[in-house]
């Protein structure tokens, strides 16, 4: 299965105790002081894409030997850090989880002297992690129910008079509050400002409460919301753009819009106590370059974090226009505020769960 997107982490992260399977790689070269890094990611088609687009070409170019592993998320990092036995040099993570893990002291700050992020969208990096790919949380609708003139904004998503039909909405707080505020009339650039008080969060929750009778499903994974659209089980849902692309290619009668979507990213971080910290920094600098980033859309419909990737001609124009980080699409969207998640996610999550279980 593909990749489960979230701001904070992956839904499957907590379920499985990660199998620490050794992926391909190893120390092949005879060079005495060969540099090496161990990278942990989530496995599956997502890690395959990362490996083919980023890790393998970079390994070839730099001579840094890459060992790939799979892991279960930041909770695993925490265990290793606490035990003082860190074996990973780089971990792939959702941006929100990385932010909180960084705040907790589980991650090394990144050295942006080494990693060149001058061509990154400014929101796609932070102290403890650097963006690896970009995706959007969008609203999608059933084109059989609404025709091509589907909802154009979150206000439309909430408008059950104009767009009667069943909704699906995320069962977790990440990416759930921002659309509600926008639907309630808060301008895009004020969303996080409003959310930064308990009243603001309550306001968003009340807006969702309004829609609750029409929410047939609280989805919990990307596979699920794609399937819901494909089966026509609901008429409208929030979700991750890449999933909908796959479903549409698969014949789903669905469409989505980047308007007012939430622009988010996955990132790479270096855990505290990484055995090859400096090499890891170099390796991150390498895979952040546009030529690697431009490989990504070949394997997965998520966008590069480096704007230059669109300019070096590696990505088809038709493909590029559909990517979340394409400048034309990016400007329609609200970049996710990772700091807000670091500060408020746990509190907001508790309130959100109260709402869902009401």
């Amino acid at each position, binding site marked *: 299965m593909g990749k489960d997107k*979230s701001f*904070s*982490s*992956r*839904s499957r*992260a*907590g*379920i499985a105790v990660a199998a620490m399977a050794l992926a391909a790689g190893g120390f092949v070269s005879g060079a005495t002081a060969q540099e090496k890094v161990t990278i942990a990611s989530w496995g599956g088609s997502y890690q395959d894409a990362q490996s083919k687009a980023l890790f393998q070409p970079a390994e070839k170019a730099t001579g840094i030997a890459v060992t790939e592993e799979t892991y279960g*998320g*930041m*909770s695993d*990092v*925490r*265990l290793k850090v*606490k035990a003082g036995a860190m074996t990973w040099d780089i971990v792939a993570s959702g941006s929100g*989880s990385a932010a*909180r*893990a960084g705040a*907790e002291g*589980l991650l090394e700050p990144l050295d942006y002297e080494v990693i060149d992020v001058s061509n990154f969208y400014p929101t796609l990096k932070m102290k403890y992690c650097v963006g690896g790919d970009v995706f959007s949380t969008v609203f999608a609708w059933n084109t059989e129910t609404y025709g091509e003139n589907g909802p154009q904004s979150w206000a439309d998503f909430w408008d059950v008079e104009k767009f009667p039909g*069943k909704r699906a909405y995320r*069962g*977790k707080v990440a990416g759930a509050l921002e659309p509600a505020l926008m639907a309630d009339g808060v301008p895009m650039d004020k969303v996080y400002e409003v959310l930064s008080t308990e009243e603001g969060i309550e306001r968003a929750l009340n807006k969702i409460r309004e829609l609750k009778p029409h929410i*047939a*499903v*609280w*989805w*919990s994974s990307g596979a*699920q919301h794609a399937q819901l659209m494909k*089966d*026509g*089980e609901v008429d409208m849902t929030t979700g991750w753009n890449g999933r909908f692309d796959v479903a549409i290619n698969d014949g789903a009668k669905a469409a989505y819009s980047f308007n007012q979507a939430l622009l988010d990213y996955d990132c790479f971080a270096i855990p505290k106590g990484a055995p090859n910290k400096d090499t890891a920094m170099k390796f991150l600098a390498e895979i952040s370059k546009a030529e690697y980033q431009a490989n990504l859309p070949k394997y997965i419909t998520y966008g590069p974090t480096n704007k230059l990737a669109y300019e070096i001609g590696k990505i088809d124009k038709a493909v590029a226009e559909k990517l979340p980080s394409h400048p034309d699409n990016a400007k329609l969207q609200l970049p996710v505020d990772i700091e807000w998640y670091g500060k408020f*996610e*746990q509190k907001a*999550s*508790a309130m959100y*769960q*109260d709402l*869902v*279980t*009401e």
Partner: protein
Amino acid sequence: MSDLALPTSSSSLAHSNQQELKRDARQERFVLFSLCSPALLLVLIIMVLPVGWLFWLSFLGEDGNFTLENYQRMVESKSYARIFRNTFEVSLLTTAICILIGYPLAYFLSQLPRRTANLCMITVLLPFWTSLLVRTYAWLVLLQRRGLVNEWGMDIGLWDEPIKLVHNLTGTLIGMVHIMLPFLILPVYGSMRAIDRDYLKAAANLGASPTQAFWRVFFPLSLPGLFAGSLIVFVLCLGFFVTPAVLGGGKVIMVSMRIATNIELFFNWGAASALGVVLLVLTLAILGVASRVLRFDQILGRGH
């Protein structure tokens, strides 16, 4: 040896081989014990240690120090109480429905000739051979808005609008009952088969109508199986994840799902462990009360 012990030891020495026989008995016990020690060790490793670890973790905060915050959170946030109630409700309902469907089915099977019954049993067990995920998704395909059940129902004219069969409690229960049913039927069938038909003859002979014979003799004798089956189903339900997650549409939230969410949210096993501990304690408490009320130790303790 002290002087005080001398008289007894000398008198015991008077019996030939007494010391030696005693030592043999001790040795034999030791050998027997060492024979089970791998099993005991295994139990220790796979049962006791993890549960102990779970307890320990649940008292650790994000900073790794002792704290009650993981438990405090459960008291403060309303959703936890609801999720626990939900978990027990769903488990109880599933168990109840399993009993209502499974008991008569097991009874029917137990009355068939053995060979026919065995054949039928294979159909009961068939679902065991399919993956849980596949079965769960199969129900999704059947029950959803444009699923087979709704389409047929509307084709035949049983109902006009699609009825909500899934992404709610109904769907969850259907899926869970389907998966749990064999766990109930097997022990119940087993205990029914073990009931000597002479008991029923005796009851009839003593004046019991078939109904009376069933309720006063057959049913109580099948209780150990029913109890074992219900217990298995109930306890398995408490930890269920996949089926409610897929068929519940996010509206049926069980403790196991919240455990997964909490691990993601807090990167902290402690927050999740506390949930596990509370679930474990509540379950044990409920079983304790149930065993008092139903006195199943007496039913189960009856041996021949």
